[in-house]
């Protein structure tokens, strides 16, 4: 793994600094995790594309000195699908919010997973809508407070990992902004993986989630993340864990890393069978 203190600035788009993110926001830690992963993989940024949606998390593409696309709310994976299909050489990374990926963009998430297209989705899950000011998300835990659930949420939350596994993603991991040691490795694994990868990173939104749920400042929230999660054997086999066990102790680590025919490859096989010769790229 890349050592702390390594200079990541060549990967970043200096003219967009500082970021829009609030002091203490976890999104910057995730961006650092992605940059660290890219640095460790030594990828040529000419061949890296970031495709983001809308939200605090969706701004991430602006901060990388790569091919950057900031699309519409929830639709990033659909844009990314077209991009990857015609230009398979590109490494496509999709930073998404939890609302972005699982509310408005839930449909695209499950279908990208089903197709197993070689795209890496990094879900910045802060359990709330940050950009719009603290409304409830499909990932907001039962009883948690938001501006649209002022008396506590009565809806059960989506579990990103379960959803991604069920939909067919072939690389599925969860980590937190507290667990920075593991994060870049999990993201690098996802980028290297040939197929659809979902890395959920539990992130803190001190400005809304923290304040509305009385979780304290950013450092307190990092400790909260530590306490509500349980590290699996980080790169071991998929866990045998019951739903009940997950409630208090959300497992983090690598849940799946398997090979299944990848969508762009499948399509190119089809071109070959149709006698179409050279592909669109």
């Amino acid at each position, binding site marked *: 793994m890349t050592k702390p203190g390594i200079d990541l600035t060549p990967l970043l788009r200096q003219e967009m600094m500082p970021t829009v993110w609030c002091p203490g926001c976890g999104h910057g830690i995730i961006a650092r995790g992605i940059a660290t992963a890219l640095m460790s993989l030594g990828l040529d940024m000419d061949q890296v594309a970031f495709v983001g949606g809308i939200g605090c998390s969706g701004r991430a593409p602006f901060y990388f000195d790569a091919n950057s696309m900031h699309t519409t709310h929830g639709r990033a994976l659909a844009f990314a*699908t*077209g991009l990857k299909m*015609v230009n398979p050489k590109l490494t496509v990374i999709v930073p998404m919010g939890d609302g972005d990926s699982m509310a408005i963009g839930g449909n695209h998430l499950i279908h990208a997973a089903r197709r197993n297209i070689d795209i890496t989705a990094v879900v910045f899950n802060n359990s709330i809508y940050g950009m719009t000011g603290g409304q409830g998300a499909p990932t907001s835990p039962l009883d948690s407070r938001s501006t649209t659930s002022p008396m506590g949420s009565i809806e059960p939350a989506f579990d990103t990992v379960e959803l991604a596994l069920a939909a067919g993603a072939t690389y599925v991991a969860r980590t937190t902004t507290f667990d920075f040691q593991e994060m870049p490795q999990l993201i690098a694994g996802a980028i290297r993986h040939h197929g659809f990868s979902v890395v959920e990173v539990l992130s803190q939104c001190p400005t809304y989630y923290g304040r509305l749920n009385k979780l304290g400042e950013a450092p307190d929230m990092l400790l909260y993340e530590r306490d509500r999660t349980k590290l699996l054997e980080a790169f071991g086999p998929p866990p045998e864990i019951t739903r009940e066990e997950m409630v208090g102790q959300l497992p983090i680590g690598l849940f799946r890393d398997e090979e299944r025919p990848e969508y762009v490859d499948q399509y190119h096989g089809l071109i070959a069978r149709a006698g179409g010769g050279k592909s669109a790229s």
Partner: protein
Amino acid sequence: MRLVQGNEAVALAAVHAGCNFYSGYPITPATEIMEMMARQMPKTGGVFIQMEDEIGSIAAAIGAAWGGAKAMTATSGPGFSLMQENLGYACMTQTPVVVVDSQRGGPSTGLPTLPAQGEVMQARYGTHGDHEVIVLTASSVVEAYRMTVEAFNLSERYRLPVILLLDAVLSHMRENVEFPDVPVRERVMPTIDENFLPFGPDAPFVPFGSGHHTVVTGMSHDETGLPKALAGQAVQRILRGVQERLAQDAREITFYHEMELADADIVLLTYGITARAAREAVGLLRADGVKAGLLDLQTLWPFPEWLILEKTQAAKAVLVPELNLGQYVIPVRAAIAGRCPVESLGRCDGELFTPEAMVEAAKALAHSLEIGGVAHD
């Protein structure tokens, strides 16, 4: 000569125009375009993908454009409504993409198999915010072919989404055709340096992977693509630039046919499928001594005000038959600004106009204005 369906002509034209990416979601009466592209794309090395909905279809097409493809999607009213947000994204990001909307009766699910022209305004103004867009239409299979190629050419030239409006009848109609050889505007990859402004005036479209780390965003941005301070002013400047370019080239991008306009008292102004009956109606009216003429538009937007004014200069009345309850008649009336009466002839029951219905409306109009030739009718 061969018997070709309207939708098939669109698919063949797209391939001819260099389309190498198609994304879509099935919907009557546009589905055959998709089915045909599913067969054609792999054969030509292009990409076909059936997306999970129309929002995803246009998103994938725009993503593919930035990947370097000439991209197209096709749909009908309900899907076209779903595409509106991302159509605006294509406008804001100056992305060339072709969207075919085969119109059926609406609103909502409406009349899935029957024709309409209910999206004339939606095609122009459906997405939120100020923007320019080019909208073409056609009245025959051959024209659908030609306009599809032109749609690609214009979207390349102006870096805009171009919308081709068909309708249920034209999509499904078969005609004996010989396809014209419509020239194709090829995409040239310019050499760019570090001073390249991806959204500068007349900037060529440079897809991802070129080495220039372009930022593409639907947020207001300046010529660099970055949403910097004063982005509001910058985007206004960019949008005005697009507007001016289209206005300058108005004569080149406005496609139309005319018939007997020189001495016409009554001008029928039509577009799309409605032109077919109008051509016959003009003949019938002339035979009855009514000096009728036809202006049939293939380019609906940018609004060809100059053309309409030019062609109706001497007219005593204008009749606008359309398969809606009066949409395009609104800007036509505004353009003519009271110089002569502009009448709407509209219907949205899923039926086409017969020439006789147009003759009757034209005669009634002539009669009410005491225009010669119908006094004894």
